């Protein structure tokens, strides 16, 4: 994948880089290790999807990258800087769109700018928000309240909010998980057109294998708990994708590989075989 921007970036360092990260939660029933020697990197402007069995620590991963949590062991790096606290250069979207009910859609999208770019004139904040809303097809809904919108539209607004401050990294924690199949496919295409307009680096957590290969450049399969990067799949699809690309022999092969890896991951018990991890050197 010859990507001029990736080559030009500082010494070709990956934008997101996790070095043998381990984390254990203390629960009422005793310590629960969720991540174990996890290595992961995402190059500039690349889109990486993370799939894995339920409860394998995928959401913990997003919180670590966002700086909302610190790992027990290992290091998280963003843009060549070690992450020790939240950074304004991250955008997040969750399965629950968490829009603020008392704000209009436009004001919801403007929210991150109020924190990160508090000095930006209000008119510019508004222009930026309106631009993104029109990109996702929400023009005309700027003054509506979130409760007046459908689930898919709310999720579109949530994506705009995640991107409004031009973050380096977009962290998506199953943002399309609660939507119906057709709305989901619509939003996949919206993601592609957003990326085309404004390239960003993204990490997507998902349970949907088709979604992972349709949206991502690389798919990382996490093992069962405690999770490490069990398999790395480079998506072999044209840059410009249509839903038809999901119904080709190539796509079927990739899905079969991922399915197999997930099955292995689900059976996993005990300690990981660390040297089988190739994700760390992928970029």
């Amino acid at each position, binding site marked *: 994948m010859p990507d001029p921007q990736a080559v030009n970036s500082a010494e070709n360092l990956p934008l997101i880089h996790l070095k043998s990260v381990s984390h254990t939660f203390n629960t009422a029933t005793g310590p629960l290790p969720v991540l174990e020697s996890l290595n992961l990197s995402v190059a500039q402007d690349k889109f990486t999807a993370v799939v894995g069995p339920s409860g394998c620590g995928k959401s913990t991963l997003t919180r670590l990258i966002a700086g*909302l949590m610190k790992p027990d062991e290992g290091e998280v790096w963003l843009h060549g800087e070690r992450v020790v606290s*939240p*950074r304004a250069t991250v955008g*997040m979207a969750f399965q629950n769109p968490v829009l603020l009910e008392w704000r209009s859609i436009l004001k919801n999208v403007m*929210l991150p700018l109020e924190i990160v770019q508090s000095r930006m004139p209000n008119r510019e904040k508004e222009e930026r928000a309106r631009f993104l809303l029109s990109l996702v097809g929400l023009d005309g809904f700027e003054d509506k*309240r979130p409760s007046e919108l459908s689930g898919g539209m709310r999720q579109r607004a949530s994506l705009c909010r995640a991107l409004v401050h031009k973050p380096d990294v977009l962290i998506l924690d199953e943002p399309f998980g609660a939507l119906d199949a057709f709305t989901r496919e619509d939003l996949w295409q919206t993601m592609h057109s957003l990326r085309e307009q404004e390239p960003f680096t993204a990490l997507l957590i998902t349970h949907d294998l088709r979604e992972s290969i349709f949206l991502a450049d690389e798919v990382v399969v996490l093992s069962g708990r405690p999770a490490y990067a069990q398999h790395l799949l480079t998506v072999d699809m044209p840059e410009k994708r249509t839903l038809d690309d999901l119904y080709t022999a190539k796509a079927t092969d990739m899905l079969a590989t991922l399915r197999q890896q997930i099955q292995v991951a689900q059976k996993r018990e005990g300690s990981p075989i660390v040297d089988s991890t190739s994700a760390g050197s992928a970029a």
Partner: protein
Amino acid sequence: MNLRRVLTPIAAIVIFLVLWELLVWVKQWPNYKMASPSDIWPAFWKFKALFFEYGWQTLWRTIAGLALSILVGTLLGLLMGMSKNIRDALYPLLVGFNAIPKATVVPIIALMFVGQHDMNTILMAFMISFFPIAVSVSIGLSTLEPEYRDILRSLGASRFTIFRKIALPKTLPEFFGALKVAVTLAFIGTNLVEIIEPHGRGLGHLFDSAKISSDYPLMFAVLIALAFMGILLYYVVVVLEQIFAGWAERAPT
């Protein structure tokens, strides 16, 4: 639509008054047993100057007590909403305090602050009405979904910013719900002091005078006046709620 919203409660009040009048008339009750609306109006008219003077005294003390309730109740709610330890520590104390019949506290306050009638009255209005505000604010804050916080925290927002932009507005509907309860409670507080510890002021004093002079219609008139002021203040809260938390009201489907 809007006209209907005004007329419906008025019609309900008129029907209530008519039924009351009928009940007294059918049973042929003397007015010392139960005064009828038609007895009450003349009683009010006779003392209307006093009603306005005393009514205003009761009203401003109630509002002052409420203001204190909002201040202290919100503050307590904040502390309890943000820290589970503080919540665990304060709940039994607050519930215990709230369970004490406030009528029994009146003589204690009267002895503690002898002659400070205004303060005693305001203090009682406050003591009786801050509890629902504290509880609702604390519940509103402690039930905030973590993702709301994460959205702003991941941008490096301070705790105070998160509170101002998200937690506070999100708690407003609960706050106003509690304030509607607190309004009526505060009136009970003011009148407890005005009746039990008479000091020649307020509608409670007028009630006490009517009782001493066996003017039963006047006693009833005072009660109606109190009810009227309670309704008035309640609607003030409703208007404020629509201004500040109108977003919480969904269009009927």
